[in-house]
């Protein structure tokens, strides 16, 4: 089998005239991950790091403009953005012709073109029980007929069963019908999990699809040492693509447009991705130019950057770094971080006034500014809205967080009968002991957060118990609703506000709604907002939803981190995109 594969590979390269190889194979991009990847099956993985690789191997129907901010969807393998039917439910896509998968023995020496059927197959694959894709939820309840298909018994899933919502009208025309109009649906299609894979490949390597990514993207997987090193090489079959984005037309954007003018993507022939888990070596290796790009480690910020104390976005490199020609791009991460209370919990949860008061008081007791200053090293801004900054729907005037006021918190608890007992700590109004458990992970950072929370709880005289467990244990417990309080971060999957607002949507309890928050008005507003396009009407709904969350305090709003991306002087064409994970295809190294 193995030998045969080689033979095909040899045949493939001799039979076809290779398309002009644009990428310079001598240019090697050195990049790093701080967390290990999982594997390269876009349906099976949903971690940032695997997806970053997949992004360069596979193609989605639509993608993002490289330079445009705020982010903008543009056609990827389709001729133009899809046509949407009048009822807002049916999308029609026309695929470009002549897009080929990279060569693989699974194709038996035949050059394999990308067709509409590939997307039909790939989307169905997301709900195949055997695949047990973690991304199935994105499409299963939206595309007509997909959910019914997913209920097929294990192993009996038939890809050939036609479903009304997902049709290949002809070789190059794809039609998708969704149940309800959804303003974010196109964003879903830009997610790498919905990229096209070839059925032959998936069936050939059925037992190890993670290691055999075959796509139509700019790179192919050359070498993989799990959790250590991934090497990509330019895909010789990649279609001719040049940078089309123009961005703002000034500053970095203008420079990139100039640098990349007339160049075929990808520019670097080879990308070497190393996994470096510890912060210090990662940074040191960047400084020594062993890595081309990186981001400033949290703990290095003060040593490396001059930060305007009033404005964390206004930063410059300290002279010793600036003189090396290192360049920085401070960016707000597309995320929110928050601590949730379990609303189902008998002590901390519930919707009665005294429980709201308890949660509110705890939220008031937490000195978020100090945490941002000390733990985040000033490299974060407070989170004031469920929808992060720079996202459509965020109202910059709204402050939905609870202001820090431990004195008021104490007075409020007094008022609701949380009396201070003989040991100096408060009891529940009914006289029962009061203790709240915070679940954290065994990391140095979490120890700092634990200390901050300890100080907060002490200031309102409430017992805190800290439970340390591995991340996955806490994750499991949070899904099962057995935690009282836990910190979460949610990173955007796509640039829609609903991606964040769904975190408190009642029916998502036990899935993404870890607080198990349930409010009829909130749920109604959420469904309503989905149908609306960006409009003042929708913004008003978003504000109202924020206020509902503020009223019941299922969360303590924490912060949004600023990440300062850096690149060495010899790197060109690099701009960090908020949603796309990598910029590798645009990057050039001129050492």
């Amino acid at each position, binding site marked *: 089998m193995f030998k045969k594969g080689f033979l095909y590979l040899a045949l493939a390269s001799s039979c076809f005239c290779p398309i002009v190889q644009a990428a310079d194979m001598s240019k090697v991009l050195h990049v790093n991950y701080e967390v*290990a990847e*999982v*594997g390269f099956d876009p349906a099976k*993985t*949903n*971690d940032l790091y695997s997806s970053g690789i997949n992004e360069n191997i596979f193609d989605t129907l639509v993608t993002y403009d490289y330079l445009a901010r705020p982010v903008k969807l543009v056609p990827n393998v389709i001729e133009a953005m899809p046509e949407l039917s009048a009822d807002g439910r049916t999308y029609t896509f026309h695929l470009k012709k002549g897009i080929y998968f990279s060569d693989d023995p699974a194709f038996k020496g035949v050059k394999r073109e990308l067709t509409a059927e590939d997307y039909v197959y790939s989307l169905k694959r997301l709900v195949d*029980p055997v695949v*047990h*894709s*973690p*991304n*199935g*939820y*994105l499409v299963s309840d939206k595309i007509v007929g997909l959910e019914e298909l997913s209920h097929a018994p*294990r192993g009996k899933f038939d890809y050939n069963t036609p479903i009304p919502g997902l049709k290949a009208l002809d070789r190059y025309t794809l039609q998708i019908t969704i149940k309800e109009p959804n303003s974010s649906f196109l964003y879903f299609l830009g997610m790498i999990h919905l990229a096209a894979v070839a059925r032959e490949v998936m069936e050939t390597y059925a*037992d*190890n*699809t*993670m*290691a055999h990514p075959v796509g139509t993207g700019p790179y192919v997987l050359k*070498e993989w*040492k*799990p*959790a*250590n*090193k991934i*090497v990509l090489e330019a895909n010789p079959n990649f279609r001719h693509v040049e940078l089309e984005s123009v961005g703002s037309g000034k500053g970095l954007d203008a420079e990139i447009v100039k640098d990349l003018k007339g160049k075929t993507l990808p520019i670097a022939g080879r990308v070497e991705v*190393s*996994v*470096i*888990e*510890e912060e*210090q*070596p990662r940074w*040191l*290796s960047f*400084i*020594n130019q*062993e890595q081309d790009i990186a981001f400033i480690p949290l703990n290095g910020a003060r040593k490396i950057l001059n930060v305007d104390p009033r404005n964390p976005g206004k930063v410059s490199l300290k002279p010793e770094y600036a003189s090396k020609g290192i360049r920085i791009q401070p960016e707000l991460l597309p995320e929110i971080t928050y601590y949730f209370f379990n609303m189902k919990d008998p002590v901390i949860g519930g919707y009665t006034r005294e429980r709201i008061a308890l949660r509110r008081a705890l939220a008031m007791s937490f000195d978020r500014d100090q945490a941002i200053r000390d733990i985040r090293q000033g490299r974060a801004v407070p989170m004031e809205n469920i929808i992060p900054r720079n996202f459509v729907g965020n109202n910059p005037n709204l402050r939905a967080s609870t202001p820090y006021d431990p004195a008021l918190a104490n007075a409020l608890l007094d008022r609701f009968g949380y009396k201070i007992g003989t040991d100096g700590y408060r009891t529940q109004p009914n006289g029962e002991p009061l203790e709240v458990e915070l679940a954290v992970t065994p990391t140095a950072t979490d120890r700092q957060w634990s200390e901050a929370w300890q100080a907060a709880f002490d200031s309102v005289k409430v017992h805190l118990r800290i439970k340390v467990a*591995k*991340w*996955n*244990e806490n*994750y*499991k417990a949070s*899904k099962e609703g057995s935690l009282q309080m836990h910190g979460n971060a949610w990173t955007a*999957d796509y640039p829609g506000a609903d991606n964040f607002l769904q975190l408190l949507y009642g029916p998502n309890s*036990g*899935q*993404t709604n870890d607080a198990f928050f349930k409010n009829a008005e909130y749920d109604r507003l959420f469904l309503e907002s989905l149908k609306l396009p960006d409009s003042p009407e929708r913004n008003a709904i978003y504000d109202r939803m924020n206020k509902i969350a503020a009223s019941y305090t299922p969360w303590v709003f924490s912060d949004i981190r600023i990440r300062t991306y850096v690149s060495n002087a010899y790197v060109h064409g690099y701009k960090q995109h908020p949603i796309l994970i990598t910029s590798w295809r645009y990057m050039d190294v001129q050492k």
Partner: protein
Amino acid sequence: MLSYILRRVWQMIPTLLGVMLLVFIVFNWAGGDPSYILAGKGVSKELIANIHAQLGLDKSLPEQFLLFVTQVLHLDFGVSWSTQQSVIGIMAARIGPSLALTGTLLVAELLTAIPIAILVAYHRGKLIDRTVTILCTVAMSVSSLVYIIVGQYALAYKLGWFPVMGWDDKSLFNSWLHYIPLPLILGLAVSLAPEVRFYRSFVVEELNQDYVRTARAKGLSERVMLFKHVLRNALIPVVTAVTTSLPFLVLGSMLLERFFGIPGMGNELLLAVDKSDFPVIKAITIAIACATMFFNLLADVLYKWIDPRVELK
């Protein structure tokens, strides 16, 4: 000899079973449930059940253990739960870098520690002995973590003498030349002091033996006496020390590997524990257990070779 080895191998079976039981119990109890990691953001009951079925976690514990035993018997540990790569393949890829570091470290340790130990043992009680002993004690007193953190910061970053970290996958030799020296030096800094003290005690013990007196009475020079008569005898405990440490060469040095980005077994194990990747944990543990038993046997056979008095019973 052969019958001895056969009997020892026979005796390994219950130990191996015990190790399997221990690992199985400990990690079923402590290992955590990997399915939630695999499920990711879109967690749902069906998905979790689905993953459980896929991983065989829906079977009863005795059934799972039996499966484990069969795996060990077939030397097939299946695929990693997190990356779905063959566990044997992962281990095969990881062992090279681990050995490159720890093997070199061992050789370097022996080559430096033994001569120093002999030197100070010979001058036992004198100033040089006391100075070296106290220096070693002070050096040993600081946590290895401090050596690594400070060493990497100072030698690689501040002074730029070494690459901060990295590994060359294409050429082990190249990696060895470029990326091994710094972790090697730090590893040596951590382990040299205890080794010197350890070996010194062996040499001192040998120097008190009667045959040393005989050697002197024969008119041998001190050098011949030390390096021919004493060293050969002191080798016996050294062999024990070295062979018992050999299995852990396979495991590599977790901290060094983690800090220096060396893709070895130690790093893999930490990662696997973190991700509840049970197949990998099981395979590594069994491998270490087998290595331990194998090297214990090897130690005994080596004794026979070094020390003619030993009879293999």
